[in-house]
């Protein structure tokens, strides 16, 4: 999502559709090839990064022109998530089946290193001041990586949940929100790893995000959103930095793949399958 440019980047098979965030009209396409599993855009660099889980590549594109600048072949299998870390100016890619995380320099687009784990790697979130959090699907663990030195710093367990896949991070309150396939959402202090709140969410693998809602409407100081594979959208309401509750839930179609937040309209955008051949972007307001 590029809220300023009013663009939505929607992965649709081998292509990225660029949609107008206000009208929903398709305004462009980027042919990437293969099967795109994740996209992130770095607004001030005007660059986008797309992971291709079939070809095991990362495609770097120009957000202005929509042209592919470079495609990098990865050594691991099934890149599954991408995130940008503002502090280290690095792009991190989770290579799911290889259980690793690869770091790219945002400017040169060169791989600068990787971190290996046992098992698989899932969702990513970076705090911008040194730590990258990585879910380990099939477990209740979140790996912590030093974004500068690319070293594993230890694991944080989600106390209540099992098979944790969805991840959202509030870098200011230093809170991790972890959605687990067994229907739990744990709120964790990202500094010491302590789970201090356990909430109920949807079931199955999840995608998530955190955002502050500056309007604070109805007491929402911030929120973490999770869309689970069973079609449940859960909004975790932040009352204070030590107080969270489930503020709302919605039932969407099953198989949600991606979630984004429009900072300008305060809309949640969810990519969900409309039918066997088509995807839809659901726009949800507060």
């Amino acid at each position, binding site marked *: 999502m590029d809220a300023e440019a009013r663009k939505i980047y929607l992965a649709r098979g081998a292509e990225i559709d660029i949609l107008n965030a206000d009208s929903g009209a398709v305004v462009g396409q980027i042919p990437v090839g293969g099967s795109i599993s994740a996209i992130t855009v770095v607004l001030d660099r005007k660059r986008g990064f797309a992971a291709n889980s079939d070809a095991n590549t990362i495609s770097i594109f120009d957000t202005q022109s929509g042209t592919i600048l470079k495609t990098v072949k990865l050594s691991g299998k099934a890149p599954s998530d991408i995130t940008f870390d503002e502090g280290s100016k690095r792009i991190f890619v989770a290579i799911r089946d290889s259980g690793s995380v690869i770091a790219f320099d945002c400017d040169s687009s060169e791989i600068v290193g990787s971190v290996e784990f046992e098992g698989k790697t899932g969702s990513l979130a970076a705090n911008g001041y040194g730590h990258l959090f990585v879910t380990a699907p099939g477990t209740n663990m979140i790996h912590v990586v030093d974004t500068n030195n690319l070293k594993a*710093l230890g694991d944080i367990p989600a*106390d209540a949940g099992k098979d944790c896949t969805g991840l959202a991070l509030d870098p200011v309150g230093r809170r991790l929100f972890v959605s687990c396939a067994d229907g739990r959402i744990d709120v964790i202090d990202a*500094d010491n*790893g302590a789970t201090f709140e356990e909430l109920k969410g949807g079931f199955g693998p999840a995608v998530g995000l955190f955002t502050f809602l500056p309007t604070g409407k109805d007491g929402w100081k911030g929120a973490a959103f999770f869309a689970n594979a069973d079609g449940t959208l859960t909004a975790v309401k932040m009352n204070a930095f030590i107080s969270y509750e489930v503020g709302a839930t919605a039932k969407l179609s099953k198989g949600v793949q991606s979630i984004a937040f429009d900072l300008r309209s305060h809309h949640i955008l969810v990519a969900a399958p409309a039918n066997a051949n088509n995807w839809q972007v659901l726009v949800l307001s507060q």
Partner: protein
Amino acid sequence: MKIGLMTLAAAVFFAHGMAAQMLAPSDLHGKRLLFVVGEADKHHPSDDGLVKKHLQAMGFNIVEAADTDPATKAQGVDLIVISSTADPYALKTKYRELPIPLFTWNQPAYPGLAMTGPHLHTDYEVVDPAHFFARSYSELYAFGANTTHEIARAVDLKNQLFGTFYLRPGTVGWGCPTPAATVIANFEGYPFRAGLFVYEKNAVMFGGVSAPARRVGFFMASDNFHLLTVAYGPALQDPDLRDWYKGLALFDASIRWAVSPPPAGPRDDASALHSTVAAAAKGKKVMFVGRKKTPEGAEADQHIIERLTELGFYVTFRDQMDPQAGADQYDLIVLSATNSKYKLSNKYRDVSVPVLCLEGLLVDTLRMAGRNRYVDYGEHGEEKESDDPADNSLLIVNPNHEMSAGLTGIVQFTKEKNVLKWARPSPGATVVATLPNMMEQAAIFGYEKGATMDGYFIAPARRVLFPLDNDAFDDLTPDGLALFDAAVLWAISRQ
């Protein structure tokens, strides 16, 4: 030769009682635990279920009991755990006498268990945020008051603040146990506002009740087990953060200590004790510091020196005015009651060898107690200086400790009633004997090496108070003499 020495050392250790080891975590597997809980309250959900799950994960086989169930339900279990959801009025005193280790965070139940006195806010307190909002925040931090107890060692507790619960105001409780207890963590700057405290088996609890087995009081409440502090991830790699997040580790270690077998305790056998001390003393050097040409007590000093020499020590006499240089070369420093506190100054406070202090008035210079006379230390029977009458007896409050010489209850210490000095050591000490009917006045107590003494002073080596007024040594009863031998033995034993 090396093997021979080790064998001898082990023999000495076993002959006089042995500090039992805490069970390893793996040893908890299959232990039976009675978990006493109250009725579920849907308006106040508790963490009892989480605690049960955690205890099961530690290896315990859990038997649940309602607070109204009879105590016979505890038959055959290895540990009783009482939740604060249990109603203290339903519990009454039914678990008080059971010779089964007990662990509880039910502070209102402390009086019924004889773990504290009965008065709310004085003997125990439950600090909940509804009534004490600011205080409940301040109790998110506790102080590591005793760092040498097995529980403290198990978690590497430091004499500093640590975080008890995750950062949100919750209910926290404390108790004020008798001096026979060990206070491991305390709250709000009050040394005996004990968040975590333990009684060793046979320790004297409130009302003179002898602990029938180990007893542990813990600071949490019914709904905040899940908030006990713990560090994961990068925080676990940082030693300062590891030292801060100790809540859950203390819970686990306290449970493990409670269910571990207590030390056998020394036997009441003065002759065997004397032989043990003699074996331990062989070849060791004692510096005896007293006052040359003392107007009183010279004969008693001489007899103490003879006693030590007869035990096998090489004794060197030093005058109170002699510099302490070279003191660290000795195995034990004995400070006579003939010393003038004014002349002795702060000497021997910092020596890295054990000190056996026979003069109760020196406790503040040695940092064994505070500086407030008649509050932190004082005496019975001193003409012009004490309102309390002379005495000749002591109450043994920790019979399982090596310094008890295997004695129990009230023992006659000296033949005649005379001056008897006392002090109130910090929680870092272990109190072995107090004045009868004045349990807060400790007569015989010791600090382990590394223990936190008064004013956060760290004991450079063992420190023992054994109050012998100028000529009292010559007046010791056989029990008094056994206590003296036991104090000497503990002071020089391995640290």
